[in-house]
């Protein structure tokens, strides 16, 4: 798959031929997603992003004869094609919308228990930009990336996950006190996921998709040479429900997550004080 991507950078027309309706000169077109981040596998598709001032219409896209699907995604327009056995996902973002997202993350106020100003799709969009590589207009794209405060994305995710931590902990406590240990058990596992997502975000691992949690943790461990977090995560996630030990397991999960959370909150406090 990586070879195919490399070929695209050498020959952008491989991509451009599929989007004749795009004003190439005035657009930013880049490859992002799991393949670029190093998480790709044999079945990964290639994510192509188009940022332009004009959104394509379904009529535009139906001009093409290739096998394809077009739909309005939850957050943006999406157009899929399969070409020579490889699936390409084209995602179209309007320039105005992109500027709005950029301004939101650049001006985020980390001091308070804020209302979420970015939705999941927008966070994913920003994260993918971190690993993006343009196929045209390279200088313009490079300048554009410099205008985004990706550091704020780390903290934003940590704060939003802290809010999720509070809600999950409350649910867990309610279930635990009520002796609903089955619910508490699964809430404890979720608390572990949330805690590690926040921790990893502060270490720069901002991919918001929970399916990559393991890979993010693996990469952090390999980068730092410290496998303590990795080992503990695997230990907590590998536990099965056992009525005889479930209370011990839940307490262990909560205690561990709380200790990690203190470190997270100290980092947030330092950032807030700046």
């Amino acid at each position, binding site marked *: 798959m990586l070879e195919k991507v490399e070929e695209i950078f050498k020959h952008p027309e491989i991509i451009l031929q599929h989007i004749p309706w795009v004003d190439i000169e005035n657009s930013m077109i880049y490859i992002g997603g799991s393949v670029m981040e190093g998480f790709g596998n044999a079945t990964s598709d290639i994510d192509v992003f188009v940022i332009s001032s004009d959104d394509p219409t379904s009529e535009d896209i139906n001009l093409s004869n290739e096998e394809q699907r077009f739909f309005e995604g939850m957050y943006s327009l999406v157009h899929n094609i399969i070409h020579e056995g490889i699936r390409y996902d084209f995602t179209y973002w309007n320039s105005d919308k992109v500027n709005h997202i950029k301004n939101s993350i650049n001006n985020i106020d980390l001091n*308070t228990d804020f209302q979420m100003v970015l939705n999941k799709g927008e966070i994913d969009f920003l994260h993918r930009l971190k690993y993006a590589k343009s196929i045209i207009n390279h200088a313009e794209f490079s300048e554009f990336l410099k205008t985004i405060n990706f550091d704020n994305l780390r903290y934003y995710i940590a704060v939003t996950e802290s809010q999720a931590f*509070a809600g999950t*902990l409350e649910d867990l406590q309610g279930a635990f006190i009520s002796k609903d240990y089955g619910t508490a058990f699964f809430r404890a596992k979720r608390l572990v996921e949330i805690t590690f997502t926040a921790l990893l975000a502060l270490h720069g691992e901002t991919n918001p998709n929970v399916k990559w949690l393991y890979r993010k943790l693996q990469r952090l461990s390999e980068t730092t040479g410290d496998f303590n977090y990795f080992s503990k995560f695997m230990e907590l996630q590998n536990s099965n429900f056992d009525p005889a030990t479930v209370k011990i397991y839940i307490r262990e999960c909560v*205690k561990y997550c709380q200790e990690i959370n203190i470190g997270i*909150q*100290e980092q947030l*406090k330092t950032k*807030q004080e700046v």
Partner: protein
Amino acid sequence: MTVVKDIFVQIRSINGKTYAVKHNEVFLLDGVGLEIWQLLDGQNTVMQISEKIAEKYNKSVNDITEDVIEFINELLEDKLIEIE
């Protein structure tokens, strides 16, 4: 005597300040307060906590033990910690 945290009390940083949050109740922790909080792990006795704080701030244990005990008593009253 050892004391442990209520495992359901969450630490949150908001507006540059650190709080212990239990249900809908919020308790402000200053820098030393957070350090004592972290030492309340069921391993350290109150005296050991005093010794560690005294060492960190280069004070005599006698000077700060009373303050540490007072703070721990406040946490006990607020049911943020419990005696083991």
